[in-house]
């Protein structure tokens, strides 16, 4: 197990290193010299050159890459070109919106999907199962930002239950802040819940067909005991994988959803930075998101090995 974990960790770190190089290279292609952008149209060549020197822009490409990389390892993401504040500060301000939003949607999606999955699996083939599975097909086809628009129309504009957009800030109290995240989280969660419910159902149906389930029934356990004590634990292996994948997807999805609700999160930061050519901010946010995805994949891999030791031996 330890060997397996170390090997996966090594692969994850290599992936992260390669990913950071790709992001750096991609941003390098972008037209526009940051020094020129910061100083404006009328700046003298001399001023531009001295700023380039100050920012290290005149150094060779790979030197800049390594200083950027080592900076990030120590929590220094550089300074924003337009706001002239550390990028790390900008990210810290925004993360308190995006991360709770992603976590809240993951919680909502799980809370909706798992009971539905169990319910439909236990009523497989009956009308309730067919109807709910039809509904999940519809759920998968929903673009989350369209669902968000509809939710705004119904709950914010027509019923006036929640704010249509903006973020109250955590200092206004947990409930007020959560209320402004509720609609976006729901819009993100519903299509994901549809996928998760289908996977829970199919995994549970497959597990219920196993021999050990027949044995458990044969020894006289009640259907509930069989379901909760034997089937669920084993059926959750694929569910955990999808949960990991979904968290990465939700984190990325916040970027679009934040635009519907005017939430000051990482997504808004990325779009503002793209239009202002504030590349160093874009780089920082994307690296952080990619690192999160790689970390989650690593944790999912390790949790596999814990649930099913055979997997660690195989690879």
């Amino acid at each position: 197990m330890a060997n397996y974990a170390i090997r996966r960790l090594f692969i994850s770190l290599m992936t992260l290193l390669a990913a950071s190089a790709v992001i750096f290279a991609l941003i390098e292609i972008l037209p526009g010299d940051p020094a020129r952008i910061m100083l404006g149209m009328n700046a003298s060549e001399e001023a531009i050159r001295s700023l380039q020197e100050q920012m290290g822009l005149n150094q060779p490409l790979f030197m800049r890459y390594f200083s950027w990389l080592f900076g990030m390892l120590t929590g220094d993401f550089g300074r924003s070109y337009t706001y002239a504040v550390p990028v790390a500060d900008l990210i810290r301000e925004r993360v308190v919106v995006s991360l709770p939003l992603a976590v809240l949607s993951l919680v909502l999606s799980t809370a909706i999907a798992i009971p539905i999955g169990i319910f439909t699996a236990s009523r497989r083939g009956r009308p309730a199962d067919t109807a709910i599975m039809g509904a999940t097909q519809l759920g998968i086809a929903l673009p989350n930002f369209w669902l968000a628009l509809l939710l705004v129309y119904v709950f914010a504009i027509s019923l006036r239950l929640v704010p249509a957009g903006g973020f109250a800030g955590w200092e206004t109290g947990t409930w007020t802040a959560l209320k402004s995240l509720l609609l976006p989280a729901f819009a993100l969660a519903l299509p994901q819940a549809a996928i998760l419910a289908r996977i829970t159902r199919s995994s549970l149906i497959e597990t219920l067909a196993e021999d050990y389930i027949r044995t458990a029934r044969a020894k006289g356990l009640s259907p509930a005991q069989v379901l909760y004590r034997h089937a669920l634990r084993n059926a959750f292996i694929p569910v955990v994988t999808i949960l990991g994948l979904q968290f990465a997807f939700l984190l990325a999805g916040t970027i679009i959803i934040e635009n519907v609700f005017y939430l000051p999160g990482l997504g808004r930061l990325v779009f503002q930075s793209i239009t202002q050519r504030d590349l160093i901010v874009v780089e920082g946010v994307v690296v952080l998101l990619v690192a999160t995805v790689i970390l989650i994949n690593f944790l999912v891999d390790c949790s596999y090995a814990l649930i099913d030791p055979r997997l660690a031996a195989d690879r």
Partner: protein
Amino acid sequence: MNGWRKSPARFKIGLLIMLVVGLTALCSFVWTPYPPTAIDIASKLQPPSMRHWMGTDHFGRDILSMVMVGSRTSIAVAIAAVAIGIGIGVPIGLLAAERRGLIDDALMRLNDLIFAFPALISAIMITAVFGPGALNAIIAIGIFNIPVFARATRGAALSIWPREYILAARSTGKSDRRITFDHVFPNVSHLLMVQATIQFSLGILAEASLAYVGLGTQPPMPSWGRMLFDAQTMIGVAPHMAIFPGLAIVATVLGLNLFGDGLRDMLDPRASSR
């Protein structure tokens, strides 16, 4: 294939929806109720009526006409992105399964690298770097189809290689490359069709997302995502502006998913029990 009569209901429903969407897109080339980009301020923000079945937008443009023309963009972008994924991903997957060893490892690590990027974020980055527009949206979505097809092809091909008919082919003196072309590829192609349907529907959603944040198809070319962006500020006064383009996306994606599910069930009866 068991023929139409035996095909699952969702396959039929999916195919029907796909036909309707496809024919609507084709129809938009020769006829739309109104010119899709014709501005008519006098009749702006009208709710659905007999004259404008889906109402009009804030410029008085006919929403039905825009939805019809918008379907072309969505379909074209998604198909092109799937073509990129198949064109590059399938050969990679076949090669990895044929050679195994170092090439296999290297290609799969490269795949892991692309998978580490949340697709949407990278698509946003790519369109931000190379400029917004339909072509760059195709490239951005297409790049993420490559590892999907490579992985699916490799997995399926690996299960074909140990079969007896491969051994038989080898004993007749065929090279590995010939076997890949003659036996492996034909036997994985049905699986790739299912994957292509899934990626097609994901491509429709991705294109809409990119257009919605202003990085996809640019105005005045109508696109469903862009229409939803315009609808956002009008949601209080003209909800129909949001409802119809959204319904078009949902219907198309639903049709593709049902079709793909049904297709998989017909090709792999074991999966239908799930």
